[in-house]
């Protein structure tokens, strides 16, 4: 048998039909649905008299435009159009008999945090969702694609996706991460290296010692931003950490089924001599805490660097960099650590898990945020919120001056009331720094939760390593 990559193995296990030209019907194990990209798909089913083929494998949760303030049970906290969208999901979930976590359920949260938390996401599965950050689930060694609304309708009706196979890319992070450097810095540094189109047409498998050493939470952060590098999906081979995370989750297999699953999951790795179409190797020791300076996720630099000059770039990037620097209100050559911020957002499907909140709390413990700073922490799910309260993290955040919110996507995409005003500048743990992403005219610098916490205290972009004590 010819050697295979992890992607090859999962792909082969899910091809339901292959046409002569290589177009395949890929069978989908889990379909996650949220309120923003699904209403038109359900409407399409109704108009054609079709139904949901596997409601038992379809999971719905509102997250994108739900308010995250404590009074959100009050309908007046939502705009009319948001209310209609959430109500449509409610109706569709009930009418088609989907698994459903409404806003009133403590398990509600960002769809990519709820899926793994509830054990819906398991190794070797195919997972889709009408959201580009579906790549997150690749941390479990599951093939997870973001899809458009027409494809959502296609999966609802047929439980398959029309796909051609992507190419294989290996991203290896060798050695150990230095202190103060996290999963977010890995994934941002990779995008800085490959560019936002470097992964187009590929599925990336992340591997190497630094990836193995990451927790499941960290691995989800790495895979989450595979899409920002243009990749169709990101993958990490499952191992003991993966199995331990899955064991006992509500929808994970139990007993003999668990043993059978485990036996297969242990075969899910890339064979030694498998073929890679592209390989990128980065030394963990060369990675520093990273921030973005511009309006593309590829505009990544170590915190110790300076804002580049547009003329440092080539081709279309010269004009793009010029536009970015102007939009961001920066001066070429200024130190990144001189950039002052007025808002801090910690949360999102990239960094809204318990480990992210612990990292922020470690920096914020006993400290206060800078006067006038608007800072919020939005946990990724109701269960993350509950755990953070149990661990005393919520008190640290509140004492420091952060708002402690309910779960949702919040200021990552600013569809709900959590937005930047024109000219406001935010240290954000989310995944996109596009023009207007967090609000028209708003300026976003992406970074890790520890870096965002440090910026909240000093009021400017800060090298978090300077705020960490020496190792005991």
């Amino acid at each position: 048998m010819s050697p295979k990559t992890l992607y090859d193995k999962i792909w082969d296990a899910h091809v339901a039909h292959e046409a002569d030209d290589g177009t395949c019907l890929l069978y989908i194990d889990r379909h996650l649905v949220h309120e923003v990209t699904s209403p038109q798909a359900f409407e399409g089913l109704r108009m054609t008299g079709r139904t949901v083929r596997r409601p038992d494998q379809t999971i719905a949760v509102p997250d994108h435009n739900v308010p995250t303030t404590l009074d959100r049970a009050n309908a007046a906290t939502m705009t009319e159009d948001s209310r209609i969208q959430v109500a449509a999901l409610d109706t569709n979930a009930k009418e088609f008999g989907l698994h459903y976590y409404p806003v009133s359920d403590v398990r509600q949260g960002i769809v990519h945090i709820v899926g793994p938390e509830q054990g819906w996401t398991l190794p070797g599965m195919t997972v889709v969702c009408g959201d580009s950050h579906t790549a997150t689930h690749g941390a479990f060694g599951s093939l997870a694609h973001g899809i458009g609304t027409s494809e959502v309708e296609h999966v609802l009706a047929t439980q398959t996706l029309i796909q051609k196979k992507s190419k294989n890319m290996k991203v290896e992070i060798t050695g150990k991460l230095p202190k103060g450097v996290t999963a977010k810095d890995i994934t941002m540094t990779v995008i800085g290296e490959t560019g936002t189109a470097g992964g187009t047409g590929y599925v990336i498998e992340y591997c190497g010692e630094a990836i193995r050493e990451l927790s499941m939470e960290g691995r989800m952060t790495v895979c989450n931003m595979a899409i920002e590098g243009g990749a169709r999906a990101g993958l990490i081979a499952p191992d003991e950490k993966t199995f331990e995370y899955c064991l006992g989750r509500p929808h994970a297999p139990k007993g003999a089924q668990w043993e059978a699953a485990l036996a297969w999951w242990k075969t899910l790795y890339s064979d030694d001599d498998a073929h890679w179409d592209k390989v990128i190797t980065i030394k963990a020791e060369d990675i520093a805490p990273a921030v973005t300076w511009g309006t593309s996720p590829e505009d990544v630099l170590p915190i110790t660097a300076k804002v580049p000059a547009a003329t440092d770039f080539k081709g279309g990037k010269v004009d793009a960099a010029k536009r970015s620097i102007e939009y961001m209100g920066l001066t070429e050559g200024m130190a990144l650590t001189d950039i002052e911020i007025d808002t801090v957002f910690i949360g999102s499907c990239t960094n809204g898990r318990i480990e992210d909140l612990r990292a922020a709390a470690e920096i914020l413990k006993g400290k206060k945020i800078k006067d006038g700073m608007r800072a919020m922490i939005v946990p990724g799910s109701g269960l993350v919120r509950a755990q953070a309260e149990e661990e005393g993290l919520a008190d640290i955040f509140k004492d420091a001056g952060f708002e402690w919110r309910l779960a949702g996507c919040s200021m990552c995409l600013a569809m709900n009331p959590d937005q930047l005003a024109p000219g406001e500048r935010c240290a954000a743990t989310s995944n996109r720094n596009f023009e207007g992403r967090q609000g028209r005219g708003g300026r976003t610098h992406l970074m890790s939760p520890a870096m965002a916490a440090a910026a909240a205290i000093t009021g400017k972009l800060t090298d978090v390593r300077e705020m960490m004590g020496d190792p005991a």
Partner: protein
Amino acid sequence: MNKFTTLSGIAAPLPLINIDTDMIIPKQFLKTIKRSGLGVNLFDEMRYDDDRNEIPEFVLNKPQYRDAQILVAGDNFGCGSSREHAPWAIADFGITCVIAPSYADIFYSNCFKNGILPIALPQEQVDVLMKDAEKGSNARIEIDLEAQTITSSDGDVFSFEVDSFKKHCLMNGLDDIGLTLEKGASIDNFETSASQARPWV
């Protein structure tokens, strides 16, 4: 879905790289539960000022490009969010063909579901068509999907690649779901064998 066979139209030049789907259709317009009506908000933040007045310098606000049916743009067009509202807005404006050196995967695939032909060409050829587009309404670009060719207003002919299945669906306005349901037996068989091989799913 609308068929796409041939097109002869005005092309609007938008020479920026990494045009993301947030630029194409900002989030405040994703709250709709319909597919139609988004054309007026295409490129909203580049097209209107804070008081909702048109910004005259933006290409689609210029008189010669108001009826553009083709968009010529830079590398990595449609990156970012998977929102299909982006191709819905483009189609609703009246643009049914995009020409760029490359596209983000999800956007590319979303176009074909909405009667839009995204054409990828080498940078040098896009540069020629960008210059052509800059001539305004006097320059019509012609696209023939069957022949897989683009003809500039000066008569330069470029051929382009397109997946045969996607081409077939676009030329005939076919509904993917209908086609897949015809393969229902294959899906049934797969489901039966998968439920034995991986009963825990």
